[in-house]
């Protein structure tokens, strides 16, 4: 890509520069549009609701953030539901990383009877939409006594087809057979090979899967809304939705403060892993 401007430059330096400015102006408009809702949330969460309702609209942050935050903490168990979200997203991420990478290791590096059939089945499972299974899942979990608890969110998500497929692709390229053979000759058991040979090599792949899983679980909404039947014991997304449903037309400053605060942990995770996740997702799509 660097060759194009490079070859053009000697011909028309001025034209390239003004084109560059035009290009960056458009890209910056796009950047502002992407960022604007976050800025808008900051504005609304720092004003009182009566200020929000006034005209012309406020375009600069106000000074009522702490007041809104206090209302928020009075109305919902914000930190309790945040703890639930951390518990669910954290446990699922841990379990997915372990189960998916273990299964992926087997599919990538070993042969056994029925392997192709089992892998084809895995790919077919990609296609099954969630709501087809939703009713029986709800019934099964009600029978197991899991409805209303975080278990109903953690267990069914503990391993998934996407992660196994993704890690298998990654491991095929990253783990060299000579390395495995050498460890086998040294008498390493299957688990030892997985733990000491495979895992250290595929850490970047695990990082992507971990961040991706954590963010997906943190944001999950439809199933928790159904499964968490006790309104006092929910995840952050469900708590936010309850807040919006009951106060969404009356105390806007408070609701917006909740929405803003709920984004913070996610923005931190994204800021830490952005390079990994953007690069890997794009690579996965063009593979």
């Amino acid at each position, binding site marked *: *890509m*660097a*060759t194009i*401007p490079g070859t053009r430059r000697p011909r028309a330096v001025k034209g390239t520069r003004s084109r*560059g400015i035009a*290009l960056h102006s458009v*890209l910056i408009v*796009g*950047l502002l*549009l*992407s960022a604007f*809702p*976050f800025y*808008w949330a900051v504005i609304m969460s720092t004003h009182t609701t009566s200020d*929000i*309702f006034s005209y*012309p*609209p406020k375009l600069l942050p106000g000074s009522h953030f702490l007041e809104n935050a206090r209302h928020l903490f009075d109305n919902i168990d914000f930190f309790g539901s945040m703890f639930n979200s951390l518990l669910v997203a954290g446990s699922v991420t841990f379990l997915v990383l372990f*189960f998916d990478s*273990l*299964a992926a*290791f087997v599919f990538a590096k070993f042969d*056994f009877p029925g392997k192709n059939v089992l892998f084809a089945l895995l790919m077919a499972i990609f296609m099954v*939409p969630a*709501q*087809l*299974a939703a*009713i*029986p899942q709800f019934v*099964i979990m009600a029978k197991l006594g899991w409805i209303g608890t975080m278990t109903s969110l953690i*267990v*069914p998500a*503990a*391993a998934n*087809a996407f992660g*196994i497929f993704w890690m298998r692709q990654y491991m095929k390229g990253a783990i060299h057979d000579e390395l495995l053979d050498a460890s086998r000759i040294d008498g390493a058991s*299957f*688990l030892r090979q997985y733990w000491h040979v495979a895992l250290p090599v595929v850490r970047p792949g695990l990082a992507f899967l971990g961040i991706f899983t954590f963010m997906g679980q943190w*944001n999950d*909404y*439809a199933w928790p809304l159904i499964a968490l039947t006790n309104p006092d014991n929910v995840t952050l997304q469900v708590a*936010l*939705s309850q807040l*919006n*449903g009951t106060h*969404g*037309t009356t105390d*806007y400053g408070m*609701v*917006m403060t909740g*929405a803003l605060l*709920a*984004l913070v942990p*996610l*923005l931190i995770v*994204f800021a830490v892993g952005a390079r990994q996740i*953007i690069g890997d997702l*794009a690579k996965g*799509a*063009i593979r």
Partner: protein
Amino acid sequence: MATVPALQKPTAAPASAPAARTRRGRRKYWHLYAAISPFYLLFLGFGLIPVGFSLYVSLHRWDGLGPMEWAGLSQYRYLLGDSDFWGSVGNTVVIWALATFPMVLLAMVTAVMLNSAVRFKNVYRFAYFLPNVTSVVAVAIIFGSVFSTNFGLVNALSQAVGLDQVAWLNTPWGIKVAIATLMTWQWTGYNAIIFLAGLQTIPGELYEAARMDGAGPVQTFFRITLPMMRPVLLFVLVVSTVTGLQSFSEPQVLLQTTANDSTFSGGPGHAGRTMVLYFFQQTFDNNDFGYGAAVAWGIFLVVILFSIVNWRLVQRRGED
């Protein structure tokens, strides 16, 4: 069964060794099966059995608690004539189209620009991807305030330039436009970054040759960029079809404050009631598990049909 031929020719020991010792073979593989078993067990319990069971449920009248009552295909027959269901199919498709076409176009333009901009590429990529990692619930609450009738930014802007106020979340088209805008905002950057990755795989020599032949930028885009991008475009279209046709959180959160009967009702006039919202309403608000299961299978068929049509359209353009 593999033991029989092995026993017939015991001399070829090395070659037939794995087949000859099936029991030992099984013992040899058990750890591999154990390693992949968690996913398959979970899938069996929370995937395969539920999907099969939902077919069974759809053939019964059932409130989820009491006894099941055989209903045969009557609920599917009702579904075919259910104007509420077909209304929700219409809503879903209109919202999907309103979101997807601007999104794909904007994402493509953004990607082409990003590809030719040399500086700050990583800054742009980070900023454009940000909307996609934020939770739909928080974002829908924020967009609800942007589109609010009384204090929303969109109406304040239109008032400032002398346009009429629109009750965005109270009119059929306003609702659809608001939902589609939210989706476009959330997914344009994501798709732009995927397009960008695709653009970067196109060999520079192709552009070099096109410039030698005197092709302009527009011609280059339609003759080289677009044909080379067809697989990526197909990926983006299929993903946006499958996710867009199953939209739930966006309309549910955005319209829950204007909905008066049910939080799954999709706002005034049910204008934002998507297929999946209708499924949730039937199942978990009306406790009609039997009909809900039939609706779920209906949604499944609509999504599959749409994906096939999409696939065909993009493929056919490739053959011309």
